[in-house]
């Protein structure tokens, strides 16, 4: 008989309830963004609290198969859903990210100019809360089916969210690319899971690990290798790692900016968690196969993405490529599994801790970067990098937040959070003995700085008006199409300025302060 523990499921209930609540709010007050957003935010906060409360208690399992042989097995072995501490942490993270994104969504949901209709608030919040539910369940998942279903639940609402910008070809195109790549990679991951089931006869992580550890034959079977590669490759889509990265720039650029922020943070965290769970919990004995795959994906991802990012001139596309590169850094510590020295229990623990630490640092900084974009551009899309010229002069606080986020992503002081993140992953790679990986990461950090520095220079540079007057001795501005940039910034920026939604300000301020705090006290 399947045992269902409703307390373990509480966070998932609250998350799903949030979606329903957003939906009901839209029925009661159709199109009114205030109540709808408030309800969603409340639900997200409630989810975080519920997850935290459940997490402080004992480990609980739900959807458990009866323990075989009369022995009362530990709840983790045969339950599909286990509410333990790491699960609670992930659920809280997802809920808080959703809360942040809801805060950042205010400008996009406000009725704007006639040529730029607002996003429908009810649908928007409903889809966002659905996606959050997937993320919350993902943290608790303990078998392959629950994992893949929750990853799909996380992703599915996002197709709709990306396409939500009406009358925008870019939006539809982004959604289409996202959808196709996502379906393909989902199928690939499922195929991997199916093959793994065929080899081991188990779906629970612990069962798979036990089956692989128990039989050298099963471990060395080519089918197992194929299954591992397919499963990890399919999940690599979620973090936009290199074989499946091409969707990210088009989708981010086409999507409403808050959705892009959600994609690059929550969705990416989902992928990282899924890869972590699968590779460490289920494929522990198969790390000699999984390790090289992860190392190759990490190296390719950061190198290719950093090189391509050098040539971007649209802000969101640049952030998209940089987030692809960051995915490479996130996966890099897991690359130490490729070496025998990286597979000792201590090194695995350090690599996992480094991955999680880097993910947290990254998410905070990325959210701050997107928050700055939204605060500056309002409901408009990310625009060109040249449109941000002189931002730091016109809006010093916003400029400071943006610069801090970018510098942090580049991993330099005063963005101390990013610096520590860099130290953490290089240390993890080194502790596992993968010094070549540490050097690749280091070289990539240099390439990365090249484009972050370019954006920072634009932000801090003279304002378009000042630049137009001062073309002469300061001849470097003459090379850029300042006229075009000035014209556009001139009409778009004042619209956004002065009316920055308070929720955006609050969200951005909280995220930035958080970035500073974890910088000093990691």
């Amino acid at each position, binding site marked *: 008989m399947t045992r269902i523990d409703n307390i373990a499921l509480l966070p998932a209930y609250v998350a799903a309830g949030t979606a329903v609540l957003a939906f009901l709010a839209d029925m009661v007050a159709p199109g009114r963004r205030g109540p709808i957003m408030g309800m969603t935010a409340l639900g997200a906060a409630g989810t975080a609290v519920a997850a935290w409360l459940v997490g402080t208690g004992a480990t609980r399992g739900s959807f458990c198969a009866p323990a075989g042989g009369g022995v009362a097995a530990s709840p983790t072995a045969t339950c599909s859903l286990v509410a333990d501490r790491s699960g609670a942490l992930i659920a809280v993270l997802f809920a808080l990210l959703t809360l942040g994104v809801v805060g950042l969504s205010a400008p996009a949901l406000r009725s704007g100019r006639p040529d730029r209709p607002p996003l429908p608030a009810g649908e928007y919040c409903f889809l966002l809360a659905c996606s959050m539910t997937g993320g919350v369940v993902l943290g608790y998942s303990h078998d392959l089916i629950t994992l893949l279903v929750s990853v799909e639940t996380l992703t599915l609402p996002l197709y709709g969210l990306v396409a939500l910008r009406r009358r925008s070809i870019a939006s539809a195109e982004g959604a289409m690319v996202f959808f196709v790549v996502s379906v393909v990679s989902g199928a690939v991951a499922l195929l991997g899971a199916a093959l793994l089931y065929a080899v081991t006869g188990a779906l629970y992580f612990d069962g798979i690990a036990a089956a692989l550890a128990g039989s050298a034959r099963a471990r060395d079977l080519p089918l197992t290798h194929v299954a591992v590669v397919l499963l990890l490759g399919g999940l690599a889509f979620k973090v936009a790692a290199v074989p499946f990265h091409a969707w990210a720039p088009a989708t981010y650029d086409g999507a409403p900016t808050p959705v892009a922020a959600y994609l690059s943070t929550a969705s990416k965290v989902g992928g990282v968690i899924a890869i972590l769970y699968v590779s460490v919990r289920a494929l522990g004995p198969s790390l000699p196969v999984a390790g090289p795959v992860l190392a190759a994906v990490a190296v390719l991802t950061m190198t290719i993405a950093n090189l391509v990012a050098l040539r971007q001139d649209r802000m969101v596309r640049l952030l998209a490529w940089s987030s692809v590169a960051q995915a490479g850094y996130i996966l890099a510590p897991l690359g130490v599994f490729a070496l025998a020295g990286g597979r000792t229990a201590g090194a695995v623990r350090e690599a996992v*801790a480094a991955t999680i630490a880097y993910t947290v640092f990254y998410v905070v900084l990325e959210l701050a970067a997107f928050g700055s974009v939204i605060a500056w551009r309002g409901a408009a899309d990310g625009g060109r990098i040249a449109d941000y010229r002189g931002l730091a002069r016109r809006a010093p606080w916003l400029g400071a937040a943006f610069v801090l986020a970018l*510098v942090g992503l580049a991993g*330099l*002081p*005063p963005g*101390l959070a990013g*610096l*520590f993140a*860099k*130290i*953490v992953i*290089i*240390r993890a790679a*080194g*502790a596992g003995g993968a*010094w070549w990986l*540490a*050097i690749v990461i*280091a*070289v990539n*950090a*240099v390439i990365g*700085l*090249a484009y972050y*520095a*370019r954006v*920072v*220079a634009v932000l*801090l*540079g003279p304002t378009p008006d000042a630049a137009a007057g001062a073309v002469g*001795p*300061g*001849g*470097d501005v003459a090379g850029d199409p300042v006229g075009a940039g000035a014209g556009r910034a001139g009409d778009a920026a004042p619209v956004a300025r002065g009316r920055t939604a308070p929720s955006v300000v609050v969200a951005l301020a909280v995220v930035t302060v958080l970035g500073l705090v974890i910088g000093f006290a*990691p």
Partner: protein
Amino acid sequence: MSWLLVAVLALPALGALAATLIRAERAGQAVGTLAAALAFLASLALGLRRAQGGGPCCAIRPWHQLDYSWVPGLDLRFHLGVDGISYPLLVLTTLLTLLCCLYTLWRVEDLGRGRLLIALLLAVEIGIAGTFLALDLVLFFIFFEVVLLPMYAVIAFWGGPDRRRAALKFVLYTLFGSVLLLVGVVLIVVRAGTGDLVALSAGRGAALSSGTQLAAFTLLGLAFAVKSPLWPLHTWLPDAHTEAPTVGSVVLAGVLLKMGTYGLLRVAVGTLPDAARRLSGVLGVLAVAAILVGALVCLAQTELKRLIAYSSVGHMGFVLLGIATMTATGFTAALVGNVAHGIITGLLFLLAGAVKHRTNTGDLADLGGLRERSPALAGVLGFAALASLGLPGLAGFWGEAFAVVASLGRHQALWTVLAVLAAIGGALTAAYFLRMLRRVTHGPASAAVAGIDAPGVRGAEIVTWSPLVGLALAVGLVPTLVLAVASTPVQALASVVGR
């Protein structure tokens, strides 16, 4: 007294913050400069009441130190300390920053946004002073990185016409160096299990295998070679100097380059003595190559600031030669050379700025006859050039002469050859500085020089130049000023290497 260590870092930080936040331009500048002055006083005061703590065990015996745990997960401790090796460089840092702030106060009308420039200079000061004070490897790395972006901003926003490219080149080169430093630091920390410099140098590298030491020394050596800069990794320096504003050049040449040589001495040699001994020959050859290449390139330079920048490559070559000999004499020479180069090159860049400001050109072909139009300026320029070429009795002499002496003292064929070549390089240094003086100060006054409106030396210029002129004389006549404080730690360090 150890609270002064925090004060040296906290005062510039508060000053930078205040200078950024205060809306009134002049008030912001004044507060920033005040902070720089207080930081200078705090760093001076660190020389008082020296405690020879640490017992007889350690190669590093800080006069004052403080030690708190910061991030246990990364073995990162907030461990600061000052001793005879870092003290002269620390005081030089705070002094030059103060002078640069004063200079900015005066030059505000044509630089604009002097408030922010002062804030950035103070931010650079935090990084440099922190690097000199850090006694923890990871902390050392963090301060090493702090310098990067503020300096980038100083070059990129207050520099010459080609500033963006030069600034990007600077930041990418030095970031390349510092990420290698990070990998090297992590390698040492992971293998030795501690990042504490005192413990590491007390252990004399015993915790690290020979292969690890070689790998780590190569990584750290490359990192510091970029920063110093050591030939052939020096190409960012001339561009950065040519485009940087005067104060940027002063800080860059005066103290920023010292982070490389200091790091080599304290971190690379101090914690990896075995590898340092084995690679000293390579280091020596590269150092002499830097001396000769720097001198030869200088002979062909046509731009004043670029010439001084390349002369830095040569001077830092002498410093590195001193370190490469791995003897107490060599280390002392390197230390004195570091301080002397900071004083003299800082002065030279201030003077070059004054010349360029008056004539609007730095091209040697357009200059000439400065002696007739502005005798005071030409006189100080001549003094600085003589000091830089190593005239006995001035600061530049001791470092270069004793680097050669230390090299001869090794009594090996390679080192004798290196010493001879370095001496030839020293002679070439004299040649190009005299050529520069002939071009700039002698001969008939060129159109640019004749057009100088204000030939006299202004009060603000006297204020900023005179401490440096005085120090160049003082260190030249009484080198014990630096030697006295440095001798004990240098002997200790040499005993670690020469085990």
